């Protein structure tokens, strides 16, 4: 069993702390994607699991063994690098079989395993080529095969698809997931691409500035982002965020222009608290001015093929709404935005934390101001 446990992990370079307080448990056979913008520490985290980066503080356990002091070769991990890191002077077969050669596996067995692994990723005909003679996708497959052949307990992926073009990326994404399902090793995949994260992951880990913002299934993270950061990062087009102020007396949030967004549930925020209201472009609807929750003006419409992304301005704050219809609106025209209660997310303006909205029937219970 190869579950990974990370406890209170920190990374410092001299006096700069780039990562701290990382706690993460990854179950055996799970596919976990670490998602975050560049510089958030996601690659460092992966490299600390791999043993390529020294651990400044905390523990990393693989399969119940603390691996902090172990060399990379002793940890049972295989890694696919962003630039593939293929050995340029070796053939495809030599690249794939290098780990076996180092481990002194007899040549006959080695060749058989190289052939089988290469076939499984569709490289059977390319064994004698050198990396320089391969396309980007083929190099990617060599890198995968080199990791697969070792039958590792843990698979580590460091942004392996970011050098591929869009179409190939989609295809390799599916192949990676299929390989994972077939082999069943624990996989940790680092990326800055949320589509990759959403589609590949059993569980997503969203990182920001060296800390974990949220851990959850892709659906959980999409539906209930725990912080303003996650809300803005996950989802494409991104979530609309409007500043406002809680009014318990009027049971809602007052937007900047004085419009009231009614909140028909119990609010864990005091009267007058500054908040951010979020809603996703795909969960709002365009209606006639005055008929929605608030009004905005049209700025421009982006054609997306299957839908239209309408960019609006509300008090100079950009707001977008995704609509399947074809709204016949001129630039500057007023338009109403209709929102359901379920579409609303509330975040504390100071801490950025999510404020839970408890779905209760407000006709029966008076709203309780809480501390």
């Amino acid at each position, binding site marked *: 069993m190869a579950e990974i446990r990370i406890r209170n992990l920190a990374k410092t370079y001299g006096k700069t702390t780039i990562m701290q307080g990382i706690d993460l448990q990854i179950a055996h056979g799970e596919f976990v994607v670490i998602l975050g913008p560049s510089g958030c520490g996601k690659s460092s985290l992966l490299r600390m699991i791999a043993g*390529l980066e020294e651990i400044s503080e905390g523990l990393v356990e693989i399969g119940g063994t603390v691996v902090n002091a172990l060399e*990379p070769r002793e940890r049972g*991990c*295989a*890694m696919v690098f962003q630039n593939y*890191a293929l050995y*340029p002077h070796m053939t495809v077969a030599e690249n794939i079989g*290098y780990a076996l050669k*180092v481990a002194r596996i007899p040549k006959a067995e080695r060749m058989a395993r190289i052939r089988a692994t290469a076939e499984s990723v569709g490289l059977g005909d390319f064994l004698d080529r050198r990396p320089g003679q391969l396309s980007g996708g083929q190099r990617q497959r060599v890198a995968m095969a080199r990791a697969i052949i070792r039958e590792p307990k843990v698979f580590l992926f460091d942004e392996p698809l970011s050098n591929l073009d869009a179409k190939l990326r989609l295809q390799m994404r599916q192949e990676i997931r299929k390989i994972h399902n077939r082999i069943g090793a624990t996989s940790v995949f680092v990326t800055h691409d949320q589509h990759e994260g959403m589609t590949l992951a059993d569980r997503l880990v969203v990182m920001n500035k060296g800390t974990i913002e949220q851990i959850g299934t892709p659906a959980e993270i999409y539906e209930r982002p725990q912080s303003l950061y996650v809300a803005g990062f996950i989802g494409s087009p991104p979530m609309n965020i409007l500043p406002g102020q809680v009014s318990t007396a009027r049971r809602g949030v007052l937007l900047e222009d004085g419009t009231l967004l009614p909140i028909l549930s119990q609010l864990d925020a005091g009267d007058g608290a500054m908040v951010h209201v979020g809603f996703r472009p795909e969960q709002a609807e365009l209606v006639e001015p005055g008929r929605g929750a608030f009004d905005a003006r049209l700025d421009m419409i982006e054609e997306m093929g299957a839908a239209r992304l309408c960019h609006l301005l509300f008090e100079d704050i950009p707001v977008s709404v995704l609509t399947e219809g074809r709204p016949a609106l001129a630039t500057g025209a007023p338009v109403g935005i209709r929102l359901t209660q379920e579409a609303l997310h509330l975040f504390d303006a100071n801490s950025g934390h999510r404020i839970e909205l408890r779905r209760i029937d407000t006709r029966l219970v008076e709203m309780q101001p809480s501390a």
Partner: protein
Amino acid sequence: MRRAHFKTSWIVAALLAPQLLVIFVFFYWPSAQALYWAFTLEQPWGGGNTWVGFENFRNVLSDPYYWSSVRVSVIFALATTALAMGMALTLALFVDRQLAGYRAFRVALIWPYAVAAPAVGLAFQFVFNPGAGIFSYINTISPGLWDPSRYPAQAVLAIIIAGAWKQVAYSFVFFLAALQSIPRSLTEAAAMDGARPLRRMLDLQLPLLTPTIFFLIVINITDSFTDSFGIVDTLTGGGPFRATDLMVYKIYSDGFRGFDYSGAAAQSIILMLLVIALTFVQFRYVERRVHYS
């Protein structure tokens, strides 16, 4: 590929002129002169010359002293190159692994290149001095055991060490640059594949260094044939018993001490052809085994 072209050719000529002039004055002219002298008998005090055809070459090639000079030159070139490159590679590998103090070493290891060959020779004159130098401690074991001015083998060893010492810095710079241009992720991938540092050195770093190794072999061998005059002149003066009479040094001593201008000219033509031939052989046969990535 887009190329820039100058509209008027006189600018091109003006820009090329200084370099061409330098090459002409210091290379083509003397070479042509040497070629001419090699086929004539030149009088040392002036006063005309006689055409003798290949007579000078015949004399040189039938001279046993000349062949012993060729022999010691080849030994010197091979040994100096091997020693200098081996040392340079070892040092560069250590600096590349960023062992403690590598920044200071990186600078310190480049400095010897800035030292002129005669200065190197003089410095090693002290080092090898049988009476007062570091090597004189050998003589405390058994008096007279170390004396390069008496023992030919020791004299050859002395110029090889001094010559190699001077070459190390140059090779070191190139080796270090090449090592540092190997992507870090390659080393890391090999580490993940289970290879220890020594294994990575043999399987990864050395094969990827082959273009640099090849380049340095060509440069080092050429240099040890043509650029060793200063060391020999200050350290051994070609002796004892002509044991360190390298080809370049023999050209000088025959020409300017023995006033055999024509013989010296013939020797320099032979040396030039030898270096050209060696370089050709290296490009033709050794370069095939080089991986340019």
